[in-house]
């Protein structure tokens, strides 16, 4: 390369250099700050059995016979079972009717979600065996101060408690479940029969 060519290249580099430096220089005039966005989704809902449902030794033996347990009428559900003192009406449940009589024990279940959370509760059928079972329930709506009927296929809404009380913790609801048994086959005297059902709870 001749001296003239070298000087020409040097001038070009000299002209180009400020342009190369410009982006570097401009970065001096900016700053970044990184904030952290944080949140948590509502906790996993749990359903716990407080008192198992038990119809007692009451089932008739004929196929297609039924035995219904009332979710509200009866002597076997107390205020402590409902977990909240509902202003309207008193607690109760367990009266048997149809092809049986007396009283049984409705099931008592605690739904734990989150303080003040709005939930929707559904009851669904289990798998029939010698007997089938169709549940019905009363969902204790702490926020709405009411017993909300729950049936299969009918979603019922409630609001979880926001404070601890004498019976339950904050963020909970109780659901009282009874229902109707139908004999799917002739039953055996003294036989023990089980059926199942599901309580499904989601946040609204």
């Amino acid at each position, binding site marked *: 390369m001749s001296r003239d060519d070298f000087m020409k290249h040097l001038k070009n580099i000299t002209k180009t250099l400020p342009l190369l430096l410009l982006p570097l220089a401009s970065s001096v*005039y*900016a700053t970044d*700050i990184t*904030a952290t966005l944080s*949140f*948590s989704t509502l906790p996993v809902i749990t359903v716990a059995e407080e008192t198992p449902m038990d119809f007692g030794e009451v089932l008739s033996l004929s196929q297609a016979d039924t035995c219904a347990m009332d979710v509200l009428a009866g002597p076997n559900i107390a205020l402590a079972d409902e977990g909240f003192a509902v202003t309207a009406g008193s607690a109760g449940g367990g009266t048997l009717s149809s092809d049986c009589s007396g009283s049984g024990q409705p099931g008592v279940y605690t739904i734990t979600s989150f303080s003040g959370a709005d939930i929707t509760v559904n009851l669904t059928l289990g798998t029939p065996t010698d007997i089938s079972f169709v549940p019905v329930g009363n969902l204790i709506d702490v926020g709405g101060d009411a017993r909300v009927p729950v049936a299969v296929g009918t979603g019922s809404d409630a609001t979880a408690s926001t404070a601890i009380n004498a019976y339950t913790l904050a963020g909970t609801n109780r659901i009282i479940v009874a229902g109707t048994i139908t004999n799917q086959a002739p039953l055996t005297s003294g036989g023990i029969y089980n059926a199942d059902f599901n309580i499904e709870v989601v946040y609204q």
Partner: protein
Amino acid sequence: MQPTQRFNKTLLASALILSAGNAFNASAENFTITATGIPDVVAAPVAGFTTLAFGANIIGSKIGSSCTIVGSTDIPEASLLVDLAPTGTDNAGTTFGDISGAACLASTTDGAAMIIEIDGVAGSTVSVEVLDVVGTGYTYTPSAESCVVDYDNATTVDTCVSLAGNLVTGVGMSLVQSANVTETPTGATDYALATGKTRMILAGTVTIDAPGIAQGVTVADPILVTITYE
């Protein structure tokens, strides 16, 4: 003898001229000047407003629904150091940081919005950009609840300019804020901010995207805020 005297006079004059000339040549001195580049703009959270949080209140199954933190709609003037209504009472910002929307529990107050102080050169302008965050099962946008205070450096009301479009330009850094807005009603405060500064609110909205977020999941993702001199 006469020629000798003439020679001495000539020699003396030459010496004087030469001496003067040497004095002029010796007067060159080197002096140093100092210049400093414009100070870098910096930003930092304001004490008491250092987190952006929606709390443990998000309903992850609410696909398409949103949860928003209150920011610009209830500005705490004393913390943002801005006079938004100089002829009215001071805004206490009592719901600042609250959350609401179908994707979060209603009536909860455990959200938190950030206030960030930007420190630059008095009277300059900056641009502020807050990018969206696309996380797993959600999208965050700064929304209109995020804003940057634009000190107009005049005796008119300052504004908090919405960041709903992610970018705000021409944001004025304060001059002498005490000479800016004079509060008219007795009891109202003329908030003073040091010169060359401004403040911004970082709040925003989280929208749940398909397939949603499972229950009991904790999310912590970075939000980038970029401040640039214009």
